[in-house]
């Protein structure tokens, strides 16, 4: 099966197109989910270590950005660390150099990621399948190499320590408070992704995923659409990466390392491609598990998360959210 076919199989038929909604696709459940999700997001720093809560939020947005490509367009990016990391360095540098309030620093990081994504996307969208993944990975490795070499700017292996967090003279160095300062930006990013998916543009993306040559016959310039969603995706990854760095007060080589790209893809596939909610749930599980393992003194975290990943994918090829939804739909159809 090709990557696009896997994404199509995972995302299921009811993607909430206007026609299906007109046919009555349970808006009540959608609102309920949203309420539960928002409540959970607001409650997280009360029930867990706040920096971890914010990591979850950042990785949720990163994974959602990857899912825009993987689940909705059928493009596997294995290089989103480039955008996340570039934004992390840029945001940290901008706040160091200018003392700008953190939202502006994050915005600068997002813009840097978007600008970087234009040439990378331009070259990558000419390839499909595993070749697309390889092009994105290759560029991300180049960015890693640059970050590693350019010590005067990035601090090399030592990383780059940012200034104290504050906003309009409000001290945000307490991660508990920073969580609530940063969360609205994460939510805005998630909202943007949701809007893209449920837009005329999102419809075209799914059409391109499922049958690119037919989309061309309908007059859609497929490369331009792929580049468009690539830039949107990279911007959201940048938003997440910038916030992540500000929240840690630190940008390191880890941010541009390929394992970060891999982690994002793993979260998406684990949660369920082409579902958005799946990425959010996946981010919670993976980040929480990693934290739990490292807290318990585990050395080889990657092996454990990797094994769980393989197991879940073998058992539920639609991912956690995709499988749950599919099962619910089947039950519902049987009842009718």
């Amino acid at each position, binding site marked *: 099966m090709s990557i696009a076919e896997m994404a199509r199989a995972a995302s299921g038929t009811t993607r909430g197109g206007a026609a299906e909604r007109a046919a009555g696709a349970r808006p009540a459940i959608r609102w309920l989910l949203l309420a539960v999700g928002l409540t959970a997001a607001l409650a997280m720093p009360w029930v867990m270590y706040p920096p971890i809560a914010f990591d979850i939020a950042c990785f949720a947005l990163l994974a959602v950005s990857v899912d825009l490509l993987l689940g909705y367009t059928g493009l596997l990016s294995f290089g989103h660390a480039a955008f996340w990391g570039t934004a992390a360095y840029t945001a940290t540098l901008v706040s160091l150099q200018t003392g700008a309030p953190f939202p502006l620093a994050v915005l600068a990081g997002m813009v840097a990621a978007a600008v970087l994504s234009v040439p990378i996307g331009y070259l990558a969208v000419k390839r499909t399948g595993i070749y697309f993944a390889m092009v994105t990975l290759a560029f991300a490795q180049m960015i890693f190499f640059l970050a590693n070499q350019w010590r005067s700017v990035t601090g090399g292996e030592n990383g780059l320590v940012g200034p104290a967090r504050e906003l309009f003279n409000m001290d945000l160095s307490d991660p508990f408070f920073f969580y609530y300062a940063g969360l609205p930006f994460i939510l805005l990013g998630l909202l943007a992704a949701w809007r893209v998916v449920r837009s*005329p543009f999102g419809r075209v993306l799914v059409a391109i995923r499922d049958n690119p040559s037919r989309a061309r016959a309908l007059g859609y310039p497929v490369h331009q659409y792929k580049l468009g969603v690539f830039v949107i995706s990279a911007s959201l990854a940048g938003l997440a990466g910038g916030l992540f760095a500000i929240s840690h007060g630190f940008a390191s080589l880890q941010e541009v390392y390929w394992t970060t790209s891999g982690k994002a893809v793993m979260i998406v596939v684990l949660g369920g491609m082409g579902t958005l909610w799946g990425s959010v749930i996946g981010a919670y599980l993976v980040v929480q598990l990693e934290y739990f393992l490292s807290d318990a003194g585990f050395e080889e975290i990657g092996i454990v998360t990797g094994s769980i990943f393989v197991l879940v994918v073998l058992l539920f090829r639609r991912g956690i959210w995709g499988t749950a939804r599919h099962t619910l739909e089947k039950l519902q159809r049987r009842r009718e």
Partner: protein
Amino acid sequence: MPDSAEAADIPQAVLAAPAALTARGLAKQFRGFRAVDGVDLSVAEGSVHALVGPNGAGKTTLFNLLSGFIAPSAGQILLGDRDITGLAPEQIARLGVARSFQITNLFPMLTAREHVELALAGRAGQGFMFWRSDRLLIEHADRAEELLASVGLEHAATVPADTLPYGQKRALELALALALDPKVLLLDEPTAGMGAEDVDRTVELIGRVRAGRTVVLVEHNMNVVASLADRVTVLQLGQVLIEGEYAEVRDDPQVVAAYLGEPDAAH
């Protein structure tokens, strides 16, 4: 001009009309094999022009060339006076050339209505609107409804395309091409595999939508060709065997020979 030699055979009305689509010396080689081998074709504006020929004659390959899906090895394609050789399929589509596919080529997860909406949204320039809700596409509901009804799919509008029976997929294929409201319509065996009733409806539909358009039709069913086509071009081994009106082409000994052993010729 390639077709000047045949000018004497062309009826006055068609002769007077300029060419909507022209191929000059069009050729396509696949690893040395000439699937289309120097085809000259002039499709008069407003006409229905049938392309017939035995299996493997190169009809679909010619469509792929005309619609930009494959690049020609040699030759030129004109849309009106404009040279469209080498343009991408989406560019040719946006210049007003729509095609349907012989092998059903749809979006398996989209419903029939979403298919048509997708085509209509593209025409309306809404495809890039990532900041709008896809409820925007409801504005196409009436037109979508109308198009689906015209191909007999009004009852199948809300089921995913891959669950439709074969004949309805063919009908959707046609609706999708019509949704683009093209100047030139390239139809590759629109009635293939349809039951008699659906064939009749499709013939009637093409007869209706041809108004104000130019239609190029690949068709094995000779009844369909007889009732729709103003001109018929017979292809064989990638070359034009003969061109003329249906009656003259049908009785041509060369054509009879080309179709010998071809079961569809019995239609």
